[in-house]
């Protein structure tokens, strides 16, 4: 029996390896070329990467911070304070957008025709207008138009004034509102804009998820005597989550990235601090690297958490 020797170019194991290898090599060469180019040009311009400036005093102030900050502290503290501000708005935004988005998404299955149509109008209106415009609208048209002082809008436990949102039984002391919790209008405008915008997309994700559950499940639940609310909570949503969670991941990541539009409404987030830092130090490449790295880490973190959640809601095959 003659031994059939397969020529190497028809070897089904070897060829994919060769293709992958050569693409990988080409990529490495490209990266090496770009890196070399960067270092060469930065050296020529006398701007080789350095990080010592991070320890220099920043010299500028930040309007609202969780970490104490003043102008005498170094740049890295300023950037950290900015990052914490970003995290604050992203976390609050994730919670708010999820709640609002789920409500709107579920409302589009409501038996009430008015509610159903309102949900559609909301989604179509919000997701078709650029976020930047919406942020400018919320800040300049809505929040900055709030009355100040004694004329502020007073709701039970909440006061809406031009100087901020006051929560928890606010009192007017000498023409200035005092309350346990104060949100600035900049933070409120950014948060509102992000929540309203992202919720429109999340509503569509939820709607798709709920629609993916076969109609028979609703009917079976009703025949067992479940109320519509119980059906949704016990039967439909657990099944819909398998479809919803992966799609939700990209909406969450979008929200985190969109938070960098904060500078449009005067909120001092990481991007805003980085921009001032870039201007004061002239360290464009370093500052942009820090920005890239921070947002990348933030989004990878969100992705990792969402993938973990996805593992929990997936069907466990036995």
């Amino acid at each position, binding site marked *: 029996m003659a031994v059939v020797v397969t020529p190497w170019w028809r070897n089904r194991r070897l060829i994919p390896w060769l293709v992958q290898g050569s693409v990988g090599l080409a990529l490495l060469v490209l990266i090496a070329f770009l890196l070399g180019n960067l270092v060469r040009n930065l050296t020529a311009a006398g701007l080789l990467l350095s990080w010592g400036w991070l320890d220099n005093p920043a010299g500028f*102030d930040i309007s609202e911070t969780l970490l104490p900050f003043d102008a005498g502290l170094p740049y890295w503290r300023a950037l950290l304070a900015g990052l914490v501000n970003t995290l604050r708005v992203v976390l609050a935004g994730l919670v708010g957008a999820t709640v609002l988005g789920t409500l709107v998404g579920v409302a589009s299955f409501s038996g009430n025709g008015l509610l159903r149509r309102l949900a559609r109008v909301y989604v179509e209106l919000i997701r078709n207008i650029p976020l930047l415009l919406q942020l400018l609208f919320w800040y*300049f048209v809505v929040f900055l138009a709030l009355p100040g002082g004694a004329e502020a809008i007073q709701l039970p436990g909440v006061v809406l004034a031009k100087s901020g949102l006051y929560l928890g039984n606010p009192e007017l002391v000498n023409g200035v509102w005092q309350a346990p919790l104060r949100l600035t209008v900049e933070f409120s405008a950014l948060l509102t804009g992000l929540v309203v915008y992202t919720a429109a997309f999340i509503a569509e994700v939820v709607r798709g998820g709920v629609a993916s559950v076969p109609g028979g499940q609703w009917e079976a639940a009703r025949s067992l005597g479940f109320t519509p609310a119980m059906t949704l909570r016990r039967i439909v949503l657990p099944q819909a989550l398998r479809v919803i969670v992966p799609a939700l991941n990209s909406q969450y990541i979008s929200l985190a990235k969109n938070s960098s539009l904060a500078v449009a409404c005067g909120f001092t987030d990481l991007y805003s601090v980085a921009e001032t830092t870039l201007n004061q130090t002239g360290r464009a490449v370093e500052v942009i690297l820090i920005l890239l790295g921070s947002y990348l880490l933030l989004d990878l973190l969100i992705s990792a958490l969402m993938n973990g959640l996805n593992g929990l809601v997936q069907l466990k095959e036995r």
Partner: protein
Amino acid sequence: MVARSRLSLLTPLLAAVALVGCAGDGGGIQSQKMAAIKARDKLICGVEGKLPGFSFVNPDGSYTGLDVDVCKAVAAAVLGDPTKVEYRDLNSSERFAALASGEVDLLSRNTTKTLSRDAPGGNGLSFAPPVFYDGQGVMAPTTSGIRSLADLAGKPICVETGTTTELNLADRMREIKAPYTPLKFQTSDQTYAAYLQGRCAAVTSDRSQLAAKRTSFPDPTAHALLPDVLSKEPLAPATTNADPAWADAVRWIVFALKQAEESGITQATVDAKVAQAKADTNQADLRRFLGVEGDFGKHLGLPADFAVRAVKAVGNYGEIFERNVGAGSQLKLERGLNRQWKDGGLIYSPPFR
């Protein structure tokens, strides 16, 4: 070795910004920048674009202002035509990156000359002589009862991000130990919109800019500048350290505008002065300045009559000032520090010799 480890962590990201560093490295006696401008037959000038008196877009799309006239003078001197300018509106955060990357040839955008911006270890800019000596001021509504900086303690102040203004404000408020809330915006439009909406008790910027912006307010008389001057703000056109020959050319074109005023040469009389200089060989200073004799233009890589071209295009420094921000304008600013040195001001051109 902290720096090394941080660097290695970020190494994969470097590729993404590799193209940022592709600036030309010019230099030498021949200016690459000037050659590029001549080949393009157009000067690309970075301006603010929304600041009446300094650079402002007219309803017909043309630009006017003191900063714009500097662009025109440079275009006239280099290309022989003040209209061969392409303007780029830059906000205060974009401006240095636009200049460093070569996107604009010249930055004529009310930019304060400072050590960190000038030094090679900082922004690495090369400044021409200041065209406007300014100081930082604060503007507040007249009805607010705010009369000095100390009255602003604990109050929000609107400021444009990425400016020296932001730092000066922080410094002065620390000195008088007054806490305050800086509200930072990316563009001057947003800054003044937030101020006019009443979000801030005051807005701070260069005094000339405040006066200029005030003219476009619904009711300019409802706002007043506080007497406090927070800083020195010499506003100067800028190029980069990468091309010293180009920087020198721009520098001396600006000096020419100042020297023309000192020598009494105006847009209207410049042709007569040239004729006079040509006729009278004894007026050596005038002949050299106007390029009738000597080779100053050649030293700079410019035409011999570059000063004549610049003045013919936009007038001398005094004319530029009065037309854009002085008595002939809506701003009605006093010459103040911007008078000629002979009149007690700071405008002083080194000798053309």
